[in-house]
């Protein structure tokens, strides 16, 4: 397997997309909504960007296409409609998961360095 560290550092947007796929398989719209709600609307991925990035994550084998889940969740907007067959679902591969973990650890160590130097930390409670 490719060394996950060879992908580091990830671009912020790739990090967010991988993170969105951690807990469940999602389609493109789902990814956009997940990132948007988790970051309270601070990060809004646009469609063109997302799909090009997904294409690339696919070719690097960090994500793969997932089968449409059984009894697919009804269309979020229109519960009467069945899920649109044109939607494809994506999920993390084991490599994708380790890359995500490696990137998180890298960021962690960076942040703890900053904390040790008291760049942040004292006031962290205030902001969070």
């Amino acid at each position, binding site marked *: 397997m490719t060394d996950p560290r060879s*992908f*580091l*550092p*990830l*671009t912020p*947007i*790739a990090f967010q997309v991988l993170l969105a796929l951690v807990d469940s398989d999602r*389609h*493109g*719209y789902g990814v*956009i*909504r997940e990132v948007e709600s988790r970051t309270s609307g601070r990060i809004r991925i*646009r*469609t*063109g*960007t*997302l*799909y*090009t*990035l997904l*294409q*690339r*994550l696919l*070719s*690097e084998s*960090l994500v793969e296409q997932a089968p449409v889940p059984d009894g697919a969740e009804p269309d*979020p*907007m*229109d519960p009467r409609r069945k899920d*649109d067959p*044109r*939607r*494809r679902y994506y999920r993390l591969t084991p490599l994708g998961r380790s890359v995500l973990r490696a990137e998180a650890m890298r960021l962690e160590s960076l942040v703890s360095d900053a904390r040790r130097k008291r760049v942040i930390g004292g006031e962290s409670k205030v902001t969070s």
Partner: protein
Amino acid sequence: MTRFLLGLWRRQPDRAGEIATTIADLCRAAHRERGIAAAVFTFIAEWLDVIRVWLLERIGQGPRVSMGRAPRLTRPPRRSPMRLLFDVRQAMRSLLASPSTTILTVLTLALGIGINTAVFSIVDSLLVRPVPYPEQERLVSLWTYSTSGKFQWRGGFTSPLTVEWRAQSDLFDRVEGSQDRSVIYEYESGAELVNATTVTPGLLPMLGASPRTGRVFVEGDGRDGTDRLAVIRSRFWAQQLHSAPDVLEREILLDGERYRIIGVLPDDFRYPDERQDIWIPLDPAQPPSTAEQPSSFVLLARLARGVSNQQAAERVKARGEALNAKAGGDGKTSASVMPVSSLIDEKTERSLLVLAGAVTFLLLIVCANVASLTLSRAVARVRDRAVRAALGASRADLVREALLEHALLGVAGASLGLVVASVAIGAVTAVLPEAMAASSLNRIDLDLRALAFLGGVSVITVFVFGLPSALLAGSGQVSGILQIGSRSSSGSVAARRFRAGLVVAEVALSIVLLAGAALMTRSLMKLEAIDIGLNPDGLLTMQLALPAPGYADAAVREDFIARVVERLRTHPNVSGVTAGALPPREHMINVGPVEVGDRPGQKSKSAAVPVFEIRAGYFATAGIRLVEGREPAPEDPAGAAVVSEGFAARHWPGQSAVGRRFRIGKGPWRSVVGIATEVRGRSEAPDSREFEIYYPRGQASDAYTSTMPMARIAEYQTILLRTSGGGVSPEELGRLVHDVDPRVIAGRTSSVEREFADAIARPRIVFLMMAIFAGFGLILAAAGLYGVLSHLVAQRTREIGIRLALGATPRTIGRVVFGNGLGLAAAGTALGLAAALALVKTMQSLLYEVEPADAASFTAVCVIVLLTAALAAWRPAGRAMRVDPVTLLRDE
């Protein structure tokens, strides 16, 4: 945008559907949460992003997974059409990475390819394929010549003789003839002399002339000369008949007779050359009885199948005298055969071949230069390629990439070369003397053959210049390069040696070009220094044709001339006017042995002496100096004459000729009253001087005139004008003449200055082109030398630093680099001199009073080349001297 979306849909329907669904979802969400405006905004913003990302992807700037790695453009699989496109894009990006080198390369290629194509077009039109006629390899021209040996001439055929040669069907399929003549074309408001050609009816069909409208002649046309048919050129139709659509029902008045127009030939049909406007049929089997019709055809024949030129030449020569006797001739005239392709004379042919050679040399220099440039690029990227090879790029891949880059350079160079070629052809045809341009029956332009040549030359050039660097790209020295690192590697050393070799070759080739240019310069200087014997500045000649009705009487003609001279003198820009032919053209001839009064009975060999009839003020107007004596005066007894210096020196060597007497043949005795400067022939090198004699008007009755008498013209007269200030236009002159008598035809007005300039136009053009080629060659060679030395200094900076640190002085270092450059130049010079000495022999016949191995020229060439080399080596040497060992070693 729609097209883009449709394209996206077609190529990746799944992805497009996915994108569309997602955007629809987003819009719906926005609508629900924030209203319709938000939905519209979302729709636009999302689609714009799709386009933005798609565009960014094209230039490799799309969204990335990892910050560390540039996105790899996915390479389409082999044999897919996208693969080539992908590779082309890669190659283009790689070329644009070093724009200055690329631009320099493309410009050099464009110049080389363009100039070569231009010269090819000219040589092709004038030499290789001057005859655009069907089955031209079987076409020959026939000429008569005297077998008695007294005089040498090349003559034509009478109608009966033409018929005799037509009967020789074992030799010829067809025998057709033509004769040029001037006809008077009369229109409502005036009349004009027009170039026409009388042809046998079969001539135009034999030459494949296809009319734009109407028909050409058929057998039976022109019988007895009574049907009065004419074929005209498109140009004449446009200029004289204003492209009248009913041209085929028109009649035109030629020499006072009505001719019916039966066809219009396109402008690019040229026979006998491009000056003809009208063709008139004549059947030699039934020639007209009137004397005005020609009886001296130039014959053009198509050889019977299986008869070679050689066989035809022998048999024609063998039968010539007998046929001549049979046709009513004196039997002392035979005939000879010449291939039609040799329309241009030997010197022009030689000039063109020399230019073709020179331009090939220039192309070789261009190749060497571009090879050197691409090689330096390849060397600079040798490490890059080695890494790629180590990562699995195959040798074939690397060579393919290199070749693709070269092909792109070639395409760019060829496209720009096309522009260079068309500009160059335009420029050359503009300065080409009329006689040279008209000597081809093909137009000089960028035709299909020239384009094919351009393509071929480009391919060969790209192959020649690209081979070394492509080989370097594919060489298997990967591990070696990576181990040794960036310093220097065996590959770059080999490349450096190779580039040094290229520089030597470039210098050698430029020496050859420069030697040619230098010899032409010296020759041209000598030609221009020749005293032409008259003052051509502002001198004009105008031809007048006095019509037979009304001017039959000599006194009337003389009166008219006097009135015209007076009328022209009133023009403010005219400072002198007289009438009379100007040497060396349009003269009469006195034939016979010259007998000198002091030694009666003792005669010189028979000669043909040009004779000119003059009027008062002739010498002053023409600017011909009288070195001794005076011009004939009205009160002189009959027989006064002015002779040229050469004539005087030959017949009265070492004595004054003034007051002496002579006569030519059985003519009257003449006495010399003045001696005039010799007027140079209008040939470029006045080797065979013909001396001139001037008689007062009306006293040359024993001389032959060279112009053909025409039934409709009583006499041709030349008016000589010395103009100043703004000059006088031909139209103004014509008007002034018509003020005196509108029936007189004002013919061609020509500038004597221009005519003398045209006489040396060929050497001047050869000189000009050689000088341009040599200049380019020298600049390219200097650039090559500069490049090699700069590269050498850059590569050896470390070595130079160490040497300096070890105690070498900058001066020594500079001397080494400088010496290196001069060494290369000297080697090239030596090689080039040897080659030039061998090659300039081919130029012998083009040179005037200059030896091909002219020491002065060759010395000058060597000095120029070595000085240029020194100039090119100066900066690299200076850079080497400024290397600072401390900084350098610290950087290491």
